[in-house]
């Protein structure tokens, strides 16, 4: 027996592979060529009848055919796979214009966000946050702040009083965050550097006043802090808070019972076209907006707080959180802050991940 010619076999098998137009047909070709009863397998079985060199030669030839056919099947299979995948994908579509499944995220109230903005700024200056109760006694809210009993601020038309227990003075809803100054002085020793944000109450209700609002208070007490520091601290704060590096800040002498000297603080603004904008618009008479009261802590207030006024001194200031929120974010009406209208909350609120920080920006 001679060594069979494998050329014809290879060509016919490769032709079958090429002709296979589906994975099933290709599998049939594979079985007919390489299966137990396949053409190549059958020829392999016949090799036993050959001798020595002839067997070797024929075996090698058949192996080449086998390799070639296997490679062709592999290539054909990859091609058919890809065609099949494309056909499947072509049949699989979704309407990507469908509205996505809702993931609801709430918003933070501007008062919360602005409070944290203030904390971020003052925190950089070494202040810590102090707190006190909303329901105050007369001493902390008035007397210790050098507000005498006959002062108009103590009258019923300004201050909310609660019903008194028999024989005791009526508690008040704190009219400012300043009592936290006294509470802090009572419980700590200088140097003191605190801010105190919180709810405050006054018996007022009209277009620009609500019976409850928010203030933030600052108190610094040590041996050397003077009016220059007061100015520096407030200027630094205002420029950082409004993010206006050249924001003009003006200090006007004024009067508060709890500070001496006292000053009111104005920042630059424009009222052109009836629209209030904060910024540097020059030194025109109408270009100032009052935003806070401040001053050097009155020696009597230090004394009431248990601090020696001959040794220690410092400054204090306070401003409305709601008010600076309105100014910074262009919120027109104070009363809307407390209405919990979800349209307002969604519009003016802040995403929960936007945690204010001086490093990341407010």
């Amino acid at each position: 027996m001679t060594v069979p010619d494998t050329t014809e076999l290879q060509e016919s098998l490769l032709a079958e592979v090429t002709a296979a137009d589906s994975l099933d047909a290709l599998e049939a070709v594979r079985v007919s060529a390489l299966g137990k009863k396949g053409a190549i397998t059958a020829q392999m079985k016949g090799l036993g009848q050959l001798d020595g060199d002839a067997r070797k030669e024929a075996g090698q030839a058949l192996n080449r055919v086998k390799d070639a056919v296997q490679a062709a099947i592999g290539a054909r299979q990859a091609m058919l796979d890809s065609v099949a995948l494309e056909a499947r994908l072509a049949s699989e579509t979704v309407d990507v214009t469908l509205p996505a499944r809702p993931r609801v995220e709430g918003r933070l109230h501007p008062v919360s966000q602005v409070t944290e903005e203030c904390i971020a700024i003052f925190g950089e200056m070494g202040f810590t946050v102090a707190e006190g109760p909303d329901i105050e006694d007369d001493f902390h809210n008035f007397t210790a702040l050098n507000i005498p009993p006959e002062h108009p601020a103590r009258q019923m038309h300004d201050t909310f009083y609660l019903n008194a227990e028999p024989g005791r003075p009526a508690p008040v809803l704190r009219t400012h965050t300043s009592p936290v100054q006294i509470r802090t002085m009572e419980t700590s020793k200088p140097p003191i550097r605190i801010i105190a944000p919180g709810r405050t109450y006054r018996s007022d209700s009209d277009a620009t006043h609500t019976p409850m609002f928010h203030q933030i208070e600052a108190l610094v007490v040590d041996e050397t802090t003077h009016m220059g520091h007061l100015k520096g601290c407030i200027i630094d704060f205002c420029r950082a808070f409004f993010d206006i590096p050249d924001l003009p800040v003006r200090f006007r002498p004024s009067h508060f019972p709890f500070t001496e000297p006292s000053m009111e603080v104005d920042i630059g603004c424009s009222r052109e076209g009836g629209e209030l904008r904060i910024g540097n618009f020059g030194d025109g008479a109408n270009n100032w907006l009052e935003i806070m009261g401040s001053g050097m802590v009155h020696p009597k207030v230090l004394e009431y707080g248990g601090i020696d006024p001959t040794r220690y001194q410092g400054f204090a200031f306070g401003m409305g959180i709601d008010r600076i929120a309105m100014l910074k974010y262009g919120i027109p009406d104070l009363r809307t802050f407390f209405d919990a209208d979800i349209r307002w909350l969604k519009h003016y609120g802040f995403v929960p991940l936007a945690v204010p920080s001086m490093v990341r920006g407010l």
Partner: protein
Amino acid sequence: MKFTLGWLKDHLETDAPVSQIVETLIRIGLEVDTVDDPAAELSAFRVAHVISAEPHPDADRLQVCTVDTGEGTVQGVCGAPNARAGMKGVFAPVGTWVPGIEVELKAAKIRGVESSGMLVSEREMGLSDEHDGIIDLPADAPVGKPFAEVLGIDDPVIDIELTPNRPDCTGVRGIARDLAAAGLGTLKPFDAAAPVAGSYESPVKWAVAGDGNACSYVVGRHFKGVTNGPSPKWVQDRLRAVGLRPISALVDITNYVSLDLGRPLHVFDAARLKHKTLTMRRAREGEDFTALIEKDFKLDSEMTVIGDGDSAEALAGVMGGLESSCTEDTTEVFLEVALFDPVSVATTGRKLQMESDARYRFERGVDPESAEWGAEVAARLIQEFCGGEVSKPVRAGSMPDWQRSIELRNDRVATLGGVDVPSDRQAEILDALGFETERLNGKMSAAVPSWRPDIGGEADLVEEITRIHGFDRIAPVSLDRDAALPSVAITPEQRRASNVRRTLAACGLDEAVTWSFMGRAQAELFGGELPDTLVLANPISSELDAMRPSILGNLLLAAGRNADRGFADVGLFELGPAYQDATPDGQQLVAAGVRHGNAQGAHWSGKARAADALDAKADAMAAIQGAGGPAANVQVSRDAPDWYHPGRSGVLRLGKNVLAYFGEIHPAVLRGLDVRGPVVGFEVFLDNMPPRKEKGSSRPALHLESLQPVRRDFAFLVNADVQAGDLLRAARAADRDAITDVALFDVYEGKNMEAGKKSLAIQATLQPSEATFTDAEIEEISTRIVAAVEKATGGALRG
């Protein structure tokens, strides 16, 4: 406090323009509220001569006037009946804003005749309602002169908002003194205070009762043969300019001295006094008083009156009485120049709701010395305006001892004020303000002037010096810190609150800030009767008359409002105070929230789902987790307070410590709030959150098992009232080492289920640690789970 520029110049020698005066006032702490310059507003209106007035060729009622404006001749069409050749009128050229009719004049043709301006009436100028004709000026009015000047209203009016510490600036002279100290001119001498000799003994005397009334000292003078006609025009002009109505010479004098010098006065018609002595005394309880504004008041014994026998003829420091007030017929006058206690005047005025220029000054503290010089100033003016004779002064009480000196260390302006002001300059400023300074070793002694009751200590002197020197000259100094990096600004509790707030927002709830108060009746839906000490004595409305015992009430009302606006699917939370009593400890920090309507709205991907108690539970759990609380260890009990639905609510707790309530809000509560339900809500008590136990930042080591966990499912048939939590706990406890998790994946009641039963299906996660579980081991654990669950629930494994 209003005054005019001209008035100021009576006391201040200055060339400064209004703008500079206003700027300086603001700079030294006299806040300028408004500046009205009528001359500037009316500057275009000038005196004009009507050369000719011819009938309009095409209209019967109109005339064509040729007018000399002083700058040329113009033609205007005029409809006024009194327009005539030769008259002097007031002309407004084209381009003028005419305030009375709110029109800017434009060149126009009126029935074919050019008109380039108009002759105006008083109404057109906004001066009065007079519109019968155009303004008809005297023949000698100078053509071209601004009409405001002719009218005497060319004096700018400055209104300052006076802080309560500056009684000295309730008079124009005090303002002038401050401006002079600030370098804006020279304070003129106070000649008006020179003594006026009296020619007879006053027939009326003063007495001050020893009953603790408000008067410390009083001076009086009697006048006879006076004529109380109108006051001079310049006085009337000034009073009008600052908004006062001239009445008669005597009354105008009291008003004028009050505004000019901050010294309130009162004049009695002496002929109408019934007794020879006027007595400062406390009012009787319920005493009647008719004030000169023709209103009756009932007085109490805290108030001080000036008594003429039994009758109260004036309310001390606030207002005179009607009976003895001066009229045009007055010929005999008794002048009162008194000192009253500021607090008493303020209290009286407030109680009776009487505002007056006298009260404004007395409650701030009138210069005690003005009792003496005020009598001289008034006597001089009365004699000048009304003629007649003046008596010698009569007095009662004693001049308060107001003299005091304050020491100022030389370096104190630098160490407190933060600005270096040379000692000489410091003394100069104080001297200019009326202090008398004396230089001592290393310090200065400053005698406080009688008109500055507000100056009490060294810091006050620093304020005086720095405000006059200029706050703008204090260099700002940024605060420095002890360390290069800031330390933590907030306490762990504050940080926790902030985290809870952001967590709840991330859960889809919008943060609200609502009032700390609510209506009492509604507040009592949350925990029953409210202690009286949490009720406001003076609420602004009955809807806001009690401190809230729970935040839920206001949130529910807010949800209701949103629903009424058409936004029913609302999730709100608030982090804030709730009040148990009026003490500082009675104020709790609570995070509360409500969900109204659907938790999941209608969407193509699934059915809408109304919020239920377990949504509220998820919110509460998230808040506890956000607070760093032990969310995995909390126990659930069913004893939520009675503002929750009794069957659909729970308490999250650690033993006795209540961390939160959650559940559906009780329908009766919703009805009480008039909110349509169902609504679910929660309250998380942040103050009850246990503090973090771990010290430092290190976490416990993480041990990762290398072997795969095995999961086994079980379904139990239990009685319908069995609680899933009990079943899960029992299963979990069956093998604390091997079982790392038990999840409930199905709850089934209903079809194909025996009545009163339900099926609960759980998946247990078994974690091998040393070697893979054998089938026998898994079987063994499974048996224990089944046994434990059956024992705890009385249920059985479903076949």
